[in-house]
């Protein structure tokens, strides 16, 4: 028992960080699931993080209020940004979002009144495991509900084939706008989560490293179901600790290789509802000895807009 307690004491912070990263991954998933590759999550996280830090360190508000405020701040930022970003197509949007991450860093460094500038900000309180878990459960519940809603159906349609979705009356712009809004709110919460777990945030907290790691963990976990990003975030948070104890000298190489192997063998990520259904179908076929040959699955694309097939028709 004592051993378990020790274990929990040692790794509870890993669990908390994994939960915090889950928000960031879910925020990336929110837009990814609507066919958008965007790193603006990091921008929303920065806004949420410094917002929360100010609310806690400056105004002395409780953590839960600060997290709520951070979510709202992220939401507001995303609602303002989305109309601009939605004018761009995929890679241009991806680049624009990267540029925005870099701009954010410059702004953070040069707005010491809001962010502490180069000195960063100390956050005097630390969030409890339970509180973080409750927040994650709430957000996961929202994603669960959305998955089984009109919005969920529409996002999947828009992601798979936006022009077909449009002929069903689904407005790609509207769906992607909502996706951005969700991404903003959840990203803001994630940023606040980072602030109350790291207890110190600066321009470097919300930068490219986080952007690349989190997009990788989102896709690794699986970007076709809301549970995937959470799994991915937990694995990517635990992986360095695990690698540290197994292969300390080449831990980063090992991390890259794990990612590579998963991408080669499970390109749609660990949690993949389609693969599960396909396996089920295969099993049934075997028992039924069905003669229908399955079609080659159409390739999944994250490109919105008109497809080449249309354009060349």
């Amino acid at each position, binding site marked *: 028992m004592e051993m378990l307690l020790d274990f929990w004491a040692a790794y509870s912070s890993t669990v908390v960080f994994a939960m915090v990263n889950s928000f960031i991954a879910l925020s990336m998933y929110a837009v990814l699931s609507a066919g958008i*590759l965007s790193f603006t999550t990091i921008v929303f996280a920065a806004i949420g993080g410094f917002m929360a830090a100010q609310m806690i360190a400056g105004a002395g508000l409780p953590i839960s209020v600060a997290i709520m405020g951070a979510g709202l701040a992220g939401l507001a930022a995303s609602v303002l940004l989305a109309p601009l970003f939605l004018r761009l197509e995929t*890679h241009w949007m991806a*680049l624009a979002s*990267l540029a925005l991450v870099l701009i954010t860093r410059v702004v953070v460094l*040069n707005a010491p009144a809001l962010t502490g500038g180069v000195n960063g900000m100390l956050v005097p309180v630390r969030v409890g495991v339970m509180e973080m878990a409750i927040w994650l459960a709430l957000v996961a519940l929202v994603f669960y509900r959305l998955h089984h809603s009109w919005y969920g159906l529409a996002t999947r349609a828009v992601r798979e084939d936006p022009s077909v979705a449009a002929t069903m009356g689904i407005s790609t712009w509207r769906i992607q706008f909502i996706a951005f809004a969700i991404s903003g709110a959840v990203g803001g919460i994630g940023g606040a989560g980072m602030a109350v777990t790291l207890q110190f945030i600066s321009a470097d907290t919300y930068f490219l490293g986080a952007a690349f790691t989190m997009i990788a963990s989102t896709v690794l976990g699986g970007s076709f179901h809301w549970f995937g990003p959470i799994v991915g975030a937990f694995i990517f948070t635990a992986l360095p600790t695990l690698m540290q104890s197994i292969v300390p000298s080449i831990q*980063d190489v090992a991390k890259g290789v794990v990612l590579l192997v998963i991408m080669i063998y499970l390109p749609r990520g660990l949690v993949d509802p389609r693969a599960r259904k396909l396996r089920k179908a295969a099993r049934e076929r075997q028992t039924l000895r069905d003669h229908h040959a399955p079609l080659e699955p159409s390739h999944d694309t*994250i490109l919105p807009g008109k497809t*080449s097939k249309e354009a060349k028709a």
Partner: protein
Amino acid sequence: MQLFLEQLINGVSLGSLYALFGIGFGLVFATLGILNTAHGAYASWAAILGYYAVEWLQVPFPMAVVIGTVGGGLIAIIVDQVGFQPLRGRKGGMLGALITSIAFLIVLDSLAGTATGHQSWAFRPGHYPDGLIDFGPIRVPQMQVIIIAAMLIVGIGMHLLVQRTRIGAAMRAVGWNEEAASLGGVNARVVILITAFLAGATSGLAGVLGGAATANISYQLGEGLLLKGFAAVVVGGFNDVRGTIIAGVLLGVTEVFVSQYLSSTYRDGVTYVLLLGFLFLRPRGLFGSGSFIRA
């Protein structure tokens, strides 16, 4: 006036590195549809190989440039065959390739860190062209002249290769539609290998020259080039070498001029705000006309 000219040359030389780096990045995107974040690692590795060649094998600098360039190309081929080839069969899409490239970025960068003992290295003074050339009142470091010349030669060469030769036509055909290209008698596999090699080699060239000019050969070398090279490619239009060159040079000049004449604190801010503005106004790049989306 002298200041203006000197800074202009600084900007053009810096931009030439971005352009040189961006050419290969754009080529891979246009032909193979991969947003390759590991492209920067090729540059780091090429610089490291060049360093080994000069400091350990004592070869002259031009030879080291060749070794680095070819090395970059070979690493690119390995990465392509190990990481991206398996995805092609199953049409993993752009996202799968992106994440795979991040995996390679992690692996190659940390191996480069180990190879350099996590230090930043530099060619010793005298082991590379570190003198100055006088152009009237302006004195320009030799490396800057070499970089600009290399960019012009490689840029024009690549443009002609892509637009005027059979290999180039084949590359464009594969970029348009791999299946159709195979039917039309183009060996897609060969074209993919050539493309990967050329991309790695140009990145490698940028790496060796940049590493020498900035006295910084480390695993972080490619990181800075990656963002700026990506920006150059996007502004220039994905499938146009001319666009990449012009955009890369403009980016370098903008950076230097913003910090000279506006504010060095806000340099990156101003540069990226300009970039964003450009994107929103002209989302298809300088020479881009139609929508560029792969078949």
